[in-house]
């Protein structure tokens, strides 16, 4: 059992209100929900939509086919009508969109009138629409009412009552006027308690639970959600959030904060990361732990600012002058985003390197249903030398040579020992040097010793599907969900599996799991990426020599929907 609801309209019409109410109600009703957003770069007007797919089993992507289309304007009808399922329906308010449809699949819900009648507020037409959709789906009213009470509690009883009345009006209207509305999804009884969380919030939660105490950023889509999340947290937890004057400042602040002794982070998109490249190199040279969230969007330059792409992989891997190790994590879901953010903080501090969390707009905004997130699975170990432990040392050298290449990281000011570091090449004390011998030892320490140690901590890609597949769908980052569902669909007819990398760099070794063997054994290996340049395929070839037999690329700013993916793969495997 599964259905998809799509809500379309102009920016500012309240798509977000309807979809967040509906999404949450569906989760609370016991469904697995997946939501995804398609927004233009404007505040009012244009054409946006949100899709809510739900089912009685875990789901991980969006479909093209729509069962219920909620059209807040005429354009939505025009653009999305073609995606309607054979028995799909369109909810619209003929008064608002200014046109009557004389066809059975069009359900005319007078949302504006009902909103005025019940709550006296035009604005509540969105709540009416949410109610109407709930009615079509024959959902219980109680979870919807409870959610509205919680959501509007802060705005007073009148707002709560008004919204509940509006929702009921929409619900009842559909029940009374739409005999065709016969969607009757089965729900689990009693509903399991589950979360609905998006990629950005998951990163924020991961950071919070990793002990991140300082976040500096300059707003940029799709990373602004992380900034907003952290700013919201800063009121309740001991976390300083600073909006910087630019991204250069943001990363230097994060590095300064880390030097001073706390875990710190910054976040941006590819274009803002361009301005952080200099700071990345500084973190590399001074061996200062720092976590950088990078939300990819279609580029070059400003590109398609509110859309999605995976075009920054090689850039993030190779950015910055000079050679130093970095960690790059590319989570495929909010769940992975949460745990990998934790791991990024842990590795950054343990090895004193910068760590990048490479996300994209699709993952940033996509809502996934989870049974829960296990905070305890995020390691939190303070790797810094502080107070007594530090004071007790006879001598302290910030960049002391050690077996592992990792030098003790001390909190400045916490003891009589000086903490000295430098962007110039330096000696163990942190002072400028120019001699060749020290330089060689420092490169060995920073790069050659640490890199293999970090590599050993990286998890190999995840195999999903056949254990010895003939066909491998390979991917990384946010394509996780759609690849997984594609495998589910194709498994009956094919020996197929997904190989998905979410821990990208240092590229995981093959000793624990020989993923190269899996690839080499397969008849067809298809690398699927949201970019034009097959960047991951080039990376894998450069590091392992392996070359995929086929490549699928999408670079129009949109994510792969399940049907698209099946079609593209179908072209190759027949």
């Amino acid at each position, binding site marked *: 059992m599964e259905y998809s609801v799509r809500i379309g309209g102009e920016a500012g019409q309240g798509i977000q209100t309807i979809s967040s109410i509906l999404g949450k109600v569906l989760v609370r009703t016991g469904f697995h929900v997946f939501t995804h957003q398609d927004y233009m770069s404007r505040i009012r007007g244009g054409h946006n939509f949100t899709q809510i797919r739900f089912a009685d089993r875990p789901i991980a992507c969006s479909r093209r086919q729509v069962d219920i289309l909620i059209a807040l304007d005429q354009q939505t009808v025009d653009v999305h009508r073609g995606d309607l399922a054979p028995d799909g329906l369109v909810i619209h308010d003929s008064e608002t969109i200014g046109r009557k449809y004389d066809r059975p699949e069009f359900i005319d819900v007078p949302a504006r009138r009902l909103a005025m009648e019940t709550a006296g507020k035009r604005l509540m037409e969105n709540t009416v629409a949410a109610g109407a959709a709930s009615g079509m789906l024959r959902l219980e009213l109680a979870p919807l009412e409870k959610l509205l009470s919680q959501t509007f509690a802060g705005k007073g009883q009148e707002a709560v009552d008004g919204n509940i009345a509006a929702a009921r009006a929409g619900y009842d209207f559909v029940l009374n006027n739409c005999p065709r509305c016969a969607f009757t999804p089965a729900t689990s009884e009693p509903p399991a*308690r589950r979360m609905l969380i998006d990629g950005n919030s998951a990163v924020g939660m991961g950071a919070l639970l990793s002990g991140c105490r300082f976040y500096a950023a300059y707003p940029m889509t799709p990373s602004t959600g992380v900034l907003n999340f952290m700013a919201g947290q800063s009121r309740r937890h001991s*976390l300083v959030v600073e909006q910087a004057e630019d991204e250069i400042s943001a990363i230097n602040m994060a*590095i300064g904060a880390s030097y001073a002794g706390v875990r710190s982070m910054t976040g941006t998109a590819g274009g803002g990361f361009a301005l952080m490249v200099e700071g990345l190199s500084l973190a590399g040279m001074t061996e200062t732990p720092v976590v950088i969230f990078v939300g990819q969007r279609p580029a070059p330059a400003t590109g398609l600012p509110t859309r999605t792409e995976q075009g920054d992989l090689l850039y993030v891997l190779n950015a910055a002058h000079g050679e130093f190790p970095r960690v790059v994590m590319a989570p495929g879901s909010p769940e992975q985003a949460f745990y990998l953010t934790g791991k990024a903080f842990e590795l950054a501090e343990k090895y004193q390197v910068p760590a990048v969390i490479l996300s994209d707009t699709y993952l940033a905004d996509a809502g996934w249903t989870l049974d829960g997130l296990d905070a305890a699975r995020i390691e939190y170990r303070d790797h810094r030398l502080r107070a007594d432990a530090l004071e007790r040392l006879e001598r302290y050298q910030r960049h002391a040579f050690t077996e592992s290449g990792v030098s003790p990281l001390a909190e400045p000011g916490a003891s009589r020992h000086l903490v000295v570091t430098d962007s110039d090449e330096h000696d163990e004390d942190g002072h400028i040097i120019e001699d060749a011998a020290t330089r060689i030892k420092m490169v060995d320490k920073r790069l050659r010793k640490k890199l293999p140690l970090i590599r050993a901590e990286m998890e190999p890609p995840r195999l999903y599907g056949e254990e010895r597949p003939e066909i491998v769908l390979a991917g990384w980052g946010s394509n996780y969900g759609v690849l997984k569902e594609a495998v589910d669909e194709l498994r009956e007819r094919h020996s197929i599996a997904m190989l998905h990398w979410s821990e990208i760099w240092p590229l995981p070794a093959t000793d624990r799991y020989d993923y190269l063997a899996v690839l080499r054994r397969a008849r067809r290996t298809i690398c699927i990426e949201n970019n034009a340049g097959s960047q991951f395929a080039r990376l894998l070839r450069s590091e392992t020599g392996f070359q995929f037999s086929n490549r699928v690329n999408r670079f129009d700013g949109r994510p792969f929907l399940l049907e698209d993916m099946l079609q593209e793969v179908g072209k190759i495997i027949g």
Partner: protein
Amino acid sequence: MAETVDFEGQQPAWCPGCGNFNILKSFKAAMAELGLQPHELVVVSGIGQASKLPHYTMCNTFNGLHGRTLPVATAIRLVNHDMPVIAVAGDGDCYGEGGNHFLHAMRRNVNVKLFVHDNQIYGLTKGQASPTSGRGMVTTAQPAGVLLEPLNPVALAVAMDAAFVARGYAGDRLFLQELMAKAMRFRGFALLDILHPCITFNRLNTYRWYQERVYRISDSHDPSDREAAFRLALEFGDRIPTGVIYRNERPTLEELVPVIAGKDPLVHQPFSRAEAETELKRFY
């Protein structure tokens, strides 16, 4: 209590006779005068001759990138508001590459002290014009002479309503030490622009040139009078005032950010995973 000798660092790599030596002397003496120990302060610097200073004294040091002293210093102070934080930069460092950070650091009013070694030239890169270079100065990169209006950091700071604005001169060592100590004692962001000759590349602004122009501001000047401060700040020609030009006490950022205002420094606040975990609730 520390003495000047406790602040002796590595052997400077500056040209013999460079104005930076006097600034370094004043620095060490001021720190000793304030009763600080080397480990009790952090110096953040950029890249340039000026920015090598922390290596030539004793202190916690973050010698970062050209132009990027202020963001680093700001964050250090927000994380540990018990620690005096000094940002040392050159004129190119701070007003050229780092101009944007300079503007916004003044807005932030974090309690960071900014000492700019202003030799009106790029020293370390061998003598190109800096933002404060005088009109007409000929260099290899400016063979037709400097055509841009020099930036007046002091006037700019007054316009930005910086909390503490002063100018010092390396040739007046004791007064410079006094100004450094004053800036350190001030509660808020403090700009101390320090004029000093680059004897190797700046043939215009020599010791003699400064000597003929620099004077100490008279006691009658009221640094809290913004218009008077602006007037004084504009004076940069035949006469160049040194001393505290503007002062405008107001709460620092550390005193306004809720999580740290009046509380322990962030770095010493405990981290409670349990509290953080409660935030997961809202996603259900």
